[in-house]
């Protein structure tokens, strides 16, 4: 099945955020903070205002003047206190981009430097062995436990303790963030490359003090999101500049800024200990320090959610987890395809793999003996629904044996087990309208590339109605006209919005069945140019089934809704902070074959297989593409991707030359194996597939390296230098 957006994308006819313009548009540039922590004593915008072509130059004072109605408690867009290097402290709108950039360089700021919190090691060097200093810069603290942890460890016949470090990674969409803002009377508009128009309306509205009816967000085609385009980033600056200049303003990040400003996964340190008695994993304790950068207190979403991954998808008699979200002077923590799950799984699954090898047990069999199946409860007490991990592990084990026989000596094989659960967010809806010529899906999400909108939603309408894809049209609208939905993230789109399309389509077929005088629902079809409906041997063109009002006013309309779903955890197990209960536990089991160059430490992935718990595959090509793309991105996290910050808080590799994403020949052949039969709550039992395939990749690769060399790596990514050092230290 060919994606509806493919021809236009192949012919260069699609307009992304970076491609959009408006008549009379000005160009914007941001003024970066020259330190990572400091107080702005004075900001002199006059040299910028006098520069050629400049129409507006704004900083904190102008922001206050432009937003008289905003509450005093609102977080300022331009800071008084700088929280990370390159944080925008002012912005310029000018007649050309060159003039805007030149003027940005002319801004003078007097800044009092403040002490810098650079990284986890310098902020909390002693934890968890030592206690926490009273003045520790903590954004959030989470702690949960259950069962007789100390007793299980005392009774254990084998205990293993490991410590891991993971790196910050960038989303690196090919298209940087870009938007255009303009003001029409009382209403502020922004057209932007986003994964969530309604999310941007909420975020930017809060920052600007604008109620939903005064801020309209329209999504453009998105050149890759991967979590980086979920929250507002460039929009508030562009909107303020539009208000200050009275003209439409375009703001696009440079690629350098894309690295420096986007919120992403930041470094973490993890400690895991497991207790085993009589071959059974009985208890696990976990400590986590997560760098949350300049995230504002109370805005941590990651710690309580990440820590669960460190326990693994295993039945445990007792557990304890404790973690801190640590404030440093980096950009705030943000979403990145399954935020932190690949990193936590690298730690948890690597630890489990090593534990099994300690015990002299096959690592796959060990996992298989402890993994959840339907009806089990997670450590936090949430019930696990249908979950394909055990079946996927069986497949992986068979495949591993096959590969062992066929692959050259020296090849290391590693299995990684990861899991995910989907958060559907708030409810949302779609509207369907049926005319004699076509079905239109009115909805609020834009296609970010994954296919969840152009294929997922369309496939649901196709399957429910019986119409071919070329008779189904998507109509996106903006936040003023489109039905609400939370956004394309969290592997939720098909499960949430696809479900809504299915519900609306069922109502349509039921109504058409009634109008045909049939007992059951109708099926739709096409003959020549016309759509028709048929049921119980009766059949009629759609034109004859519509009322005159429907024929004249947009066709037969039906609305479909989905409701945000979640599971429930046992509150008695939570002792501090917030933990989350999503739903649709989804297993990913990967098998990696690697070769390690013992001289250089270079890891080459020769072959790869991804077994994905799918619930039900709705559109096989889209499913496969998501798994392949997720694996490739995970190989970057595993092997090369690492944001490096200097002691002054400067990102030292803000570009593609130094921050290495996988290139074409670095990706091995990937075998994608869907596993059906463990249904989720999505349409026809489908589970989300956007994030799960990235999750076990670093674990599978590190386990394969351990298999090849006998040496385990405890830090991501597995760069040649780290691997060579570990081999030398043996």
């Amino acid at each position, binding site marked *: 099945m*060919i*994606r509806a*957006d*493919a*021809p236009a*994308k*192949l*012919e*260069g*006819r*699609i*307009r*992304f955020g*970076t*491609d959009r313009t408006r008549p009379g548009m000005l160009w914007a540039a941001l003024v970066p903070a020259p330190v990572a922590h400091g107080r702005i004593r004075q900001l002199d915008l006059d040299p910028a205002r006098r520069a050629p072509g400049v129409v507006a130059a704004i900083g904190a004072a102008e922001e206050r003047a432009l937003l008289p109605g905003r509450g005093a408690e609102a977080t300022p867009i331009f800071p008084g206190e700088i929280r990370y290097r390159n944080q925008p402290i002012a912005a310029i709108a000018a007649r050309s981009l060159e003039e805007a950039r030149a003027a940005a360089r002319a801004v003078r700021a007097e800044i009092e430097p403040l002490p810098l919190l650079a990284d986890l090691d310098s902020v909390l060097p002693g934890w968890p062995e030592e206690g926490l200093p009273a003045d520790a810069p903590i954004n959030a603290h989470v702690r949960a436990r259950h069962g007789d942890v100390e007793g299980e460890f005392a009774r254990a016949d084998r205990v293993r303790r490991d410590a891991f470090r993971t790196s910050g990674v960038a*989303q*690196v*969409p*090919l*298209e*940087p963030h870009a938007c255009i803002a303009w003001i029409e009377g009382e209403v502020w508009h922004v057209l932007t490359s986003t994964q969530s128009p309604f999310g941007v309306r909420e975020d930017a509205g809060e920052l600007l003090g604008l109620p939903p009816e005064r801020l309209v967000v329209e999504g453009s*085609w*998105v*050149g*890759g*999101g*991967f979590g980086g385009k979920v929250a507002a980033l460039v929009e508030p600056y562009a909107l303020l500049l539009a208000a200050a200049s009275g003209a439409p303003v375009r703001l696009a990040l*440079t*690629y350098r800024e894309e690295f420096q400003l986007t919120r992403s996964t930041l470094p973490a340190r993890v400690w895991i200990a497991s207790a085993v008695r009589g071959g059974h994993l009985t208890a696990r304790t976990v400590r986590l320090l997560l760098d949350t950068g300049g995230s504002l207190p109370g805005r941590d979403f990651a710690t309580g959610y990440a820590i669960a991954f460190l326990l693994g998808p295993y039945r445990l008699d007792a557990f304890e987890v404790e973690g801190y979200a640590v404030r440093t002077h980096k950009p705030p923590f943000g979403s990145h395809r399954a935020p932190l799950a690949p990193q936590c799984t690298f730690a948890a699954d690597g630890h489990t793999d090593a534990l099994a090898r300690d015990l002299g047990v096959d690592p796959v069999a060990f996992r298989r003996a402890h993994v959840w199946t339907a009806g089990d409860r997670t450590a936090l007490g949430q019930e696990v629904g249908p979950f394909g991990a055990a079946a996927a592990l069986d497949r992986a084990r068979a495949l591993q044996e096959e590969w062992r026989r066929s692959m050259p000596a020296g090849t290391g094989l590693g299995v990684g087990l990861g899991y995910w659960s989907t958060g559907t967010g708030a409810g949302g809806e779609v509207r369907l309208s049926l005319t004699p010529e076509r079905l239109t899906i009115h909805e609020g999400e834009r*296609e*970010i*590339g*994954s*296919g969840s909108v152009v294929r997922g939603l369309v496939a649901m309408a196709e399957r429910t109605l019986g119409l071919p894809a070329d008779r189904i049209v998507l109509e996106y609208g903006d936040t003023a006209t489109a039905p609400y939905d939370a956004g394309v993230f969290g592997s939720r789109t098909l499960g949430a919005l696809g479900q809504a399309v299915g519900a609306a389509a069922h109502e349509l077929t039921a109504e058409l069945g009634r109008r045909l005088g049939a007992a059951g629902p109708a099926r739709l079809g096409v003959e020549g140019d016309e759509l028709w409906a048929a049921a119980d041997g009766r059949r009629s063109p759609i034109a004859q089934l519509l009322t005159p009002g429907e024929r004249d006013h947009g066709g037969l309309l039906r609305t479909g809704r989905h409701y945000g779903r979640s599971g429930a955890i046992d509150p008695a197990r939570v002792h501090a902070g917030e933990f989350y209960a999503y739903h649709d536990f989804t297993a990913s089991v990967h098998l990696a074959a690697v070769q390690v160059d013992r001289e250089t430490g270079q890891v080459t992935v020769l072959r790869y297989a991804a077994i994905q718990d799918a619930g039900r595959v709705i559109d096989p*090509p889209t499913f496969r*593409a998501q798994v*392949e*793309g*997720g*694996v*490739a*991105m995970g190989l970057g996290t595993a092997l090369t991707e690492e944001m490096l910050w200097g002691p002054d808080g400067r990102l030292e590799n803000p*570009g*593609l*030359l130094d921050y290495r*994403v*996988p*290139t*074409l*020949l670095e*990706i091995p*052949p*990937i075998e994608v194996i869907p596993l059906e039969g463990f249904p989720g709550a999505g349409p026809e039992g489908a589970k989300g597939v956007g994030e799960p395939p990235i999750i076990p990749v670093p674990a599978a690769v590190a386990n394969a390296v351990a298999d090849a060399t006998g040496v385990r790596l405890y830090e991501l990514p597995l760069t040649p230098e780290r691997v060579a050092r570990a081999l030398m230290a043996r």
Partner: protein
Amino acid sequence: MSGPDGSALVVNGRAHPIDGVPSHERLLDTLRGRLDLKGTKEGCRTGNCGACTVLVDGRSALSCLVLTHEVGDEPVTTIEGIAADPNGRRVQQAFLEEGALQCGYCTPGFVVALTGLLSESPGATAEELLTDLQGNLCRCTGYAAIVRAVRTLRAEGP
């Protein structure tokens, strides 16, 4: 058509006067900003992603690293004109059939670069073509479907 001083840029078979174009302007910006040919994508602007690939006299070039005035009278082909080249059409068809795109931001660069390679070295093997495509990044597909499209093209013959 050419400007008063005779300088013109020939893009997809049409000549555009460029005497008003500053000497430091990049071909990428002339194409996108002045000629409204937005199919050529702007990514890193440092020569590291391949999204801005165009053909200059049939050979692939990163338009973010080429100055407009450097091009001289060599014809430029962008994604908008690639279908006029039979190789371009074949590449588009192979990408379509293999689903070798997701967000599509890298796609024009890949299609143009591969078209240039097929024309330049019609006998190249799939492996050679893939080696030469390494400068084009894709963050969405994991390259798997792109590799399949290249293999399909080679299976069809030169």
